[in-house]
């Protein structure tokens, strides 16, 4: 569970990232494809080169969605507000949920690179908890 303090940390941190959503999101994806090449199997139809238009547009969507989700942390709306994304991942994309963990890790690495001193152990812990809660919702319709 995330405390009120952690929730505020996450709202501030992720809303600060919205203006650079394309950079952050595409870098996290590119780090995932480079470090865990098997994750590329789901994206054969996209140009996965560093900074490609596809990565920037997908990366932006992901970061904006994660940022918007922070508003509903620890409220009943959290799960329901992600209903569309949850159905989309379970029924259309059908991504093995273990890949969400790989993405989360690469997002943490990207944030650590970009935020420097603003990504201390406290921000790290809050983000790790939040991303794992977020991906649990994305995976919950699988079974």
């Amino acid at each position, binding site marked *: 569970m995330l405390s009120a303090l952690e929730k505020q940390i996450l709202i501030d941190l992720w809303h600060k990232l919205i203006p650079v959503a394309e950079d952050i999101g595409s*870098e996290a994806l*590119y*780090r995932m494809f*480079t*470090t865990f090449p098997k994750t590329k199997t789901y994206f054969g139809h996209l140009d996965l080169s*560093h900074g490609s238009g596809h990565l920037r547009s997908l990366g932006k969507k992901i970061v904006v969605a994660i940022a918007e989700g922070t508003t509903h942390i620890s409220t009943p709306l959290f799960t329901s507000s992600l209903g569309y994304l949850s159905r989309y991942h379970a029924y259309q994309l059908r991504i093995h949920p273990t890949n969400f963990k790989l993405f989360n*890790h690469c997002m*943490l*690495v*990207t944030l*650590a*690179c*970009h*935020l*420097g001193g603003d*990504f201390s*152990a*406290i921000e*790290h*812990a809050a983000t*790790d908890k939040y991303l794992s809660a977020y991906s649990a919702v994305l995976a919950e319709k699988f079974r």
Partner: protein
Amino acid sequence: MVSWSQSERSAIADLWDKINVDEIGPQSLARVLIVYPWTQRYFGKFGNLNSVAAILGNPKVTAHGKVVLNALDNAVKNLDNIKETYSKLSQLHCEILSVDPDNFRLFADCLTIVIANKFGAAFTPEIQATWQKFLAVVVAAMSSRYF
């Protein structure tokens, strides 16, 4: 048997050269204890781990973080024989310390994030990929003598 290209060998050696183990080791262990609190079960003799500040200021966490990262030097120096290098250490963690080996992966992940935090853009995706391949081999070696 893992094979390493020349560029992987130099990427690992170059990164390791820049790492101050006495700084990165304690930070990494502290983050493991903060982000994954169940890992505190192994450190009952470390005293106060009740808050982020207590963990970051705990001298035993600092000391042990240095020990762990110093031990990683053995893998850097024995890239072609990592499994054998950690055979005894793996056995110790299994038989004496009873540490769930999945926690080695959590330490590796926190170490990578602390390094990213320290080096920023210089920790490129390509260096990250090689570094995590290296850590995956270390984690497998540390888990190799379990039962």
